[in-house]
C-alpha cells in the first residue's frame, strides 16, 4: 500500500513533539543555573564603609533596590540603594551591629548582619555595649599587623561569598532527585489504588 510507505500525519506530529521535547530539555539544561526570586545579600566593612551586594540565585544582580540598615534597637540608621551591578555602599555612622535589609517590593527580601566588631573604634557606639571577641587590642597593634588583618578579612569575605554561591547552586542531582521522588510517590499511589481495587473486587 502506498499509504504504508508514507509517514502518517500522526507520525509527523509525534516526531515534531519529540523535537519540541528535546528543545525543551536543552533549554532546561541551559537554564539550570537559573535565577530565582530568592534574594541574597552579602556585605563586609572596610574602615567605616560597608560594602555589599544583593543578587538573586545564580548571581544575577538585584538592581536599584533599597537597602536599609537597622541597629539592634530596630531603628533605621542608614539607607542606600543598589546600583546596576547590585552593589551598594553605606557609610556607617555608629559602631554597632548593622542589619542590612533589602526587599524587592513583591515580598521577597533578604538580610545580612555586619557585626560591630568589623567597624572601627573611632565611630560612636550605639545600642548594647559591644564586645570584641576577635580584636580587643586592634588599636594598639603596630600598623603593619593591622594591614595584614585587613588582607585576611578581605580573603575571608571572598571565601564566605564563594561558599554561599556554592550552596545556592541548583544542582542537576536536585532536579533528578525531585523527579525521582515524584516517580516513587506515583508508585505508592498505584499500590494504594491496587488495594482499593482488590477490596472492591472482594466485596463485589
Amino acid at each position, binding site marked *: 500500500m502506498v499509504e504504508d510507505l508514507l509517514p502518517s500525519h500522526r507520525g509527523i506530529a509525534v516526531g515534531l513533539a519529540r523535537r519540541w521535547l528535546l528543545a525543551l530539555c536543552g533549554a532546561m539544561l541551559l537554564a539550570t543555573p537559573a535565577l530565582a526570586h530568592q534574594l541574597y545579600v552579602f556585605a563586609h566593612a572596610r574602615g567605616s564603609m560597608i560594602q555589599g551586594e544583593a543578587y538573586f540565585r545564580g548571581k544575577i544582580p538585584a*538592581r536599584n533596590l533599597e537597602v536599609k540598615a537597622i541597629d539592634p534597637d530596630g531603628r533605621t540608621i542608614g539607607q542606600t540603594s543598589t546600583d546596576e551591578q547590585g552593589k551598594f555602599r553605606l557609610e556607617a555612622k555608629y559602631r554597632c551591629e548593622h542589619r542590612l535589609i533589602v526587599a524587592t517590593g513583591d515580598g521577597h527580601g533578604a538580610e545580612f548582619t555586619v557585626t560591630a566588631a568589623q567597624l572601627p573604634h573611632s565611630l560612636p557606639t550605639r545600642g548594647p555595649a559591644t564586645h570584641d571577641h576577635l580584636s580587643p587590642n586592634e588599636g594598639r597593634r603596630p600598623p603593619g599587623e593591622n594591614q595584614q588583618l585587613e588582607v585576611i578579612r578581605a580573603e575571608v569575605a571572598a571565601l564566605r561569598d564563594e561558599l554561599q554561591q556554592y550552596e545556592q547552586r541548583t544542582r542537576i542531582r536536585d*532536579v533528578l532527585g525531585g523527579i525521582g521522588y515524584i516517580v516513587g510517590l506515583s508508585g505508592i499511589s498505584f499500590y494504594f*489504588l491496587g488495594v482499593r481495587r482488590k477490596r472492591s473486587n472482594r466485596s463485589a
Partner: protein
Amino acid sequence: MHIYEGILAGTAHGREVLLAGAAIGAAGTALGLFKLDYERVPRAAVLSSAFFVASLIHVPLGPTSEHLVLCGLMGLILGWAAFPAILVALLLQAVFFSFGGLTTLGLNTLIMALPAVACYYLFGRAVRSGNEATVFAVGFAAGATAVLLGAALNAGSLTLAGKQFREIGMVVAALHVPLAGIEGLVTGSVVVLLRKVRPELLDAPLLASSGQEIRHG
C-alpha cells in the same frame, strides 16, 4: 506566584490566613487523591515533574523574575488531581531549591491548585472542540486565567493578612499580567499539540491537522 516564606508568619492575621489556606489546601488534596484513578496517576506524576522543573526557567520581569507555572494545563488534564500534584511539586521545590517554604506550603498549594480546578470546569469542555483555532484559544484562555486567578488569590490572601501587605499584593498582581500572556501562549500550543498526538489526555477526539485527513494504513 507564591507567597514568600516568613512574610505572613510574623502577624496574628497572617498566621490565621496561613492556617485557613493550609486547611482548604488539605481538603482539596484529599478530594484530589480520592478522585485519582489509575489513568490519572502517571499524568499527575508527569505534570508534577514538569511543574517542579519549570520553576527553574525564569523570565526576568522588572525587579524580580517569574517562571512558568503550567497551572492551567494541569487543571485541564488533571482536574481535582491538580491539588496533590501541585502540593508534591511545591514540597519538593521547598526542600530542594528553597523556593517557598513549609509554613506557606498549604496556602501556596491553594493559590495555584484552585485556579487549575477552576480551569478544568471553565474550559474542560471547550478544549474538546474540533477546530484547531478554538482549541488554541481555549488553551490560551486557560493558561492566562489560571495565572491571573492565582495572582488574585495571592493578592487577596495578602490583603486578608493585613493592610501592610496590600502593596506587595498589588505589585505581585501587576507583575503577573505579562506572565499570563506567556503562560497562555505556552498552554495554547501544548494543548493543540496534545490534541494532535495524545488526545486521550484531554478525554477528547484526535484533532486532525487543518484541511487534511488522517490516513489509516
